[in-house]
């Protein structure tokens, strides 16, 4: 028999995964080169959801850009709203009142929780733990309802304004949040019992999608992916904006930089975000929710309807846009997937001259091939799930 044993001929195979694949939530195409079931090389094609965000922004006034930013990372639209509004405020050289800053922190953290819940729930359900998927979506639903009572929309929030927010917190907001957090904590404890010692889950996640610290930095990764490798970089701590320096929270770090670490980082960040919201709700001061500066903020409706100056003021801001001085700024906030930066160039008119978003998902996808090379085809699914590519932000 010994003479008959032959090596099976191995040939590489090209496989195209996507653009529409049930396990890749989002349109994206992996051009894989396989030997057997192992990934030798991978070329990622993005851009299926490109809609010319930057070009559209150049046609709109500063205020009209805010709805466009909802559509960037549609799992956490409020963080995009906050990031954009703060960049324009930096360009204007103004700072919002403390109550507005607290509200912005609260909505950002609520959004971060919904984003992490979506990401973790979907990643778990793709590995077969569909109960966890449903539990986390249920937990997300409680928070989505809060976002809905606050902003009037689940996804297209458009909550911030340049120089403030749309309106104040609704009545008994603290009570609603406390109740929702109780339910979320209970559900997360259930998920923890379902996953933490689950052999299948740990085998599929641990040691898969490894990326080293050096590679992560060389690719410019941020957010949970970078923190899972042990680099302590969080924009909220490194360059505190809003009132993050007054609030206590920790930045969860990983050690290995694999999918399991990313998952754990995200789950722990949910707890930290809830801590931030609870503190902020305790410490939020009374006061105005937007600037009083007439160059930036629309006049009250009473003035608009009853005085010619008010009407003219309103008309000027709506038709010509806020007059922003010429210059260029870069401002970053910590999005759910990493550093969400805005680079804006103004030529002094009512419209942005150039608006660039630094999309954390896009940059994470550029390192995706490093994370899936050498693993099985089936390992692409959890790795891609934990990168949490949001096509709206990646493709803009």
């Amino acid at each position, binding site marked *: 028999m010994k003479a008959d044993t032959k090596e099976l001929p191995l040939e590489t195979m090209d496989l195209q995964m996507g653009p529409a694949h049930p396990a890749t939530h989002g349109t994206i195409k992996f051009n894989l080169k396989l030997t057997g079931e192992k990934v030798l090389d991978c070329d990622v094609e993005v851009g299926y959801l490109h809609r010319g965000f930057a*070009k559209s922004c150049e046609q709109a006034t500063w205020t009209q850009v805010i709805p466009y930013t909802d559509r960037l990372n549609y799992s956490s639209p409020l963080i995009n709203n906050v990031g954009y509004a703060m960049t324009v405020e930096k360009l204007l050289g103004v700072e919002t009142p403390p109550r507005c800053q607290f509200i912005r922190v609260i909505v950002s953290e609520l959004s971060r929780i919904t984003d992490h819940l979506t990401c973790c729930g979907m990643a778990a359900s793709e590995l077969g733990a569909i109960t966890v998927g449903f539990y986390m979506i249920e937990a997300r639903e409680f928070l989505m309802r809060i976002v809905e009572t606050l902003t009037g929309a689940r996804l297209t929030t458009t909550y911030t304004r340049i120089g403030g927010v749309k309106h104040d917190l609704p009545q008994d907001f603290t009570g609603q949040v406390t109740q929702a957090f109780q339910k979320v904590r209970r559900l997360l404890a259930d998920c923890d019992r379902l996953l933490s010692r689950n052999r299948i889950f740990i085998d599929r996640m641990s040691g898969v999608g490894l990326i080293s610290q050096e590679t992560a*930095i*060389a690719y*410019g990764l941020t957010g949970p992916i970078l923190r899972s490798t042990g680099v302590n970089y969080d924009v909220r701590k490194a360059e505190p904006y809003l009132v993050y320096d007054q609030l206590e929270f920790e930045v969860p770090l990983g050690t290995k930089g694999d999918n399991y670490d990313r998952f754990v980082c995200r789950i722990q960040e949910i707890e930290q975000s809830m801590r931030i919201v609870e503190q902020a709700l305790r410490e939020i001061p009374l006061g105005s929710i937007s600037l009083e500066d007439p160059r930036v903020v629309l006049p009250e409706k009473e003035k608009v309807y009853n005085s010619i100056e008010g009407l003219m003021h309103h008309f000027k801001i709506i038709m010509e846009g806020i007059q922003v001085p010429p210059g260029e700024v870069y401002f970053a906030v910590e999005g759910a997937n990493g550093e969400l*930066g805005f*680079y804006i160039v103004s030529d002094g008119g009512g419209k942005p001259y150039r608006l660039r978003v*630094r999309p954390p998902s896009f940059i994470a996808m550029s*390192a995706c091939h490093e994370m899936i090379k050498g693993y099985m085809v089936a390992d692409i699914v959890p790795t891609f799930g934990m990168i949490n590519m949001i096509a709206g932000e990646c493709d803009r």
Partner: protein
Amino acid sequence: MGVKFHGRDSSTILYLQQSLGGRILDSHAFRGDETIVITREGLLEVFLFLKEDPKLDFNFLTDITAVDYLGKKEPRFEVVYHFYSFRAKHRLRVKVGVSEEDPIVDSLVPLWKGANWLEREVWDMFGIRFLGHPDLRRILLYEEFKGHPLRKDYPVNLCQPLVPEREVKGTFVDQRSHNKLMQLKQQFSAKS
């Protein structure tokens, strides 16, 4: 006005001016964002210095983008780099002017791998080429797309024609289902 405003002589810029000298054409720190404009020649050496100088230590390439100043500035384009340093916790913006006739700059891929996709996007959107880039293809748009949409002279509402389906090499096609599909298509066209 609660935002800190640094003057022209912030310490990083002063240090850079001392060490790089004539390579720096302009510098400012508008709203605290330290910015230098450098010459296109010897670009890689400057970036290597930024990366490896122990005092600067800009190990993290945050972003690469470009701006089209059509009719406002000469040279027309500016490639904009943003850096961050994990250790020193400071940021820097570096800008390089690129003319319309010769839109080429050196690629940063040898220094930071993350520059790969960012430079591809700049090529896609602005038509600026990167010398030494391993794989300069379009990234967000498709190969058949004509022009570079973020240039200021690209019309906003321009419609480009649909492209025919591309032949994809190396994919597995099930002949039986393929034949069946062709048959159905023929039947359908014969009827109508």
